[in-house]
């Protein structure tokens, strides 16, 4: 059985760092509704860090769609980011 999310997942680690929460509190379904630290300032910060870390430019539509970590992962994969 292959674990879909590796134990040291880059994206989870990045979200944990930006939201300033422990990575074990985060799952693929984590969202601003379930994580109180995920406010608009943190969201802005996330965009900066994601764009820089994966060398991508996100459109406003993509940014607004990223309401969970799973969606963010999907958006990044569709933009050709293979590490996530």
């Amino acid at each position, binding site marked *: 059985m292959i674990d879909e999310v590796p134990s040291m997942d880059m994206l989870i680690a990045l979200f944990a760092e930006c939201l300033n929460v422990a990575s074990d509190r985060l799952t693929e379904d984590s969202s601003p509704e379930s994580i109180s630290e995920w406010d608009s*300032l943190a969201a*802005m910060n996330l965009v900066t860090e994601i764009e820089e870390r994966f060398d991508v430019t996100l459109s406003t539509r993509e*940014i607004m769609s990223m309401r969970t970590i799973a969606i963010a992962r999907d958006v990044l994969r569709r933009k050709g980011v293979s590490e996530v």
Partner: protein
Amino acid sequence: MTIAASAEDLRASRAKWKLRQSDQADLTGLAIGIASTFTSEPIAPYFASQLIDSGLGCRTVHFAPYNQIVQSCMNPLAAFNDKVDVALVLWRIEDIAPSALHDLVGGRHDRVQDVVNAASGVAQAAAEMQRVTGIPTLLAIPPLPYAPGLDSTSLAFGPALVGCHTAVVRCVEEAINANGLLRFDFNTLINHFGLERAIDWRKWYLYRQPYTEQFWWRIAERATRLLEASRSARKKCLVLDCDNTIWGGVVGEDGIEGIALGDDFPGSAFRDFQRQAAILAAGGVFVALASKNNPADVWRVFDEHDGMALSRDQISVAQIGWTEKADGIAEIARQLNIGIDSIVFVDDSPIEIEKVRSRMPEVTCLLAPADPAELPLLLLNNKYFDQLRVTDEDRARGHSFRAEKNREEMRVATSPEEFRQSLQLTLKIGPVRPAHVGRVAQLINKTNQFNLTTRRRSETEVSALLVEHETTVLALDLEDRFGSYGIVGVAVLKTIGKTWELDSFLLSCRALGRGVEHAFKAAIAEIARERGIERIRASFLPTAKNAVAAGFLGEVGFSKISEEAFEAEIDGIRGLDPYVTVIPL
């Protein structure tokens, strides 16, 4: 000198900031408050890291609620949720008067006044905050409006916006000058960086945050530089090599006709570099030469080459010959009576730079770039000689130094007693007035040697002292037969009952060694007596540089009451000198 940050610098600053946020261990440095018409939080990591690198430190950065700057200035404690040491008011015209601007580009020129009134409201609120709370406040000069709904590039509407912007800038400049605010030139900053490059429309629409991370770094850089200039001492002397530094080529080999200096490249780049040095000289920086050359060759270039921008009388000291440059620099420092740590040395030879650096790590050594086109950039964006404004004393410094040379000649030729007698010193002493604040703050921040407590204060802090009821700030202005020294001494006194607590007492080294320090003390005692003060309490806080002042309190009649504290009854203070005339300032 480049000030752009790499993506890595930006990321490292953000990571460090997050760590500091979570462990909260470092409670030193400035608490910054930012009131802005847009989301400004991205500046925090960059501002903090640059403040820490500058030595000013940064304890925390607080943000007032978004786009409520007038209210925030009226109640900064509530807005910043804490006491702050410095406030930055960052704003744009398009945020404070959006509908008036829209009407304006639509052809209603009468709306200019409404925009100016709104801008004036912001400036007055910032001034009020500084006046009431004493928090030094950086007020932004706003950039040219640039919003999606207002096309300032439009051929038809652009001119109205530009005209309105000019009117707003004039109004804000006036408020800054009238209220002693710190002028944060956001407009020039964004022009240099590039308006289009500074803005990230996505973040503006999503988060009301208009700027790119790179531009936030630059805003932080500029604000840090302004705070540094307002609080710390600038360098005092620029020491220049000659060959391949202030002209191209080697005068001893190429001859005066063969060196590159003048209208055409590369001579034009060397002349631009000289122009920068000449401007520094006019603003009170000593310019000196340290060159391995035949002195006659160098002076011939100064006297005869029409490409020279620096003139011979702008050179305070010249060390031209075949000795080591480090010895020359030591001699320059001795003659100017400044520390070698206030010297910036420029040379095109990496070997000379390395030799000076290894013998005198305190000297700031700059290697002149091999490409002359880069030479004029060496002193641009460079904080060493930053200052907020040029005072009369600065402008007179070159002249003062020559007067000092004449004094020195007389001192050598006469006995100490005769020397003091013949100087005909006049001391003018009295309370500091607002017009003196620039010079007084400069002395407070620059004087290292004869300084009993070495307490530094910004201009705003000095202005605040002037209105404190229990505080007296005295200035000493000095003159002799060779000319005026200007204001050379400052004393800050706090009244506690019938005692004056000497918070600060300092004298420029230019005035030392002629009985002035003693006479200043005696004159203070005289003023104290008039005001019913019975004793003066003072302290001496030793630093690496103020040993010259160590014995002073004892000499003028103070007795030691503890490790650092001294006290004297007014009648026991000595020091009046028969050769010195004391009159009110």
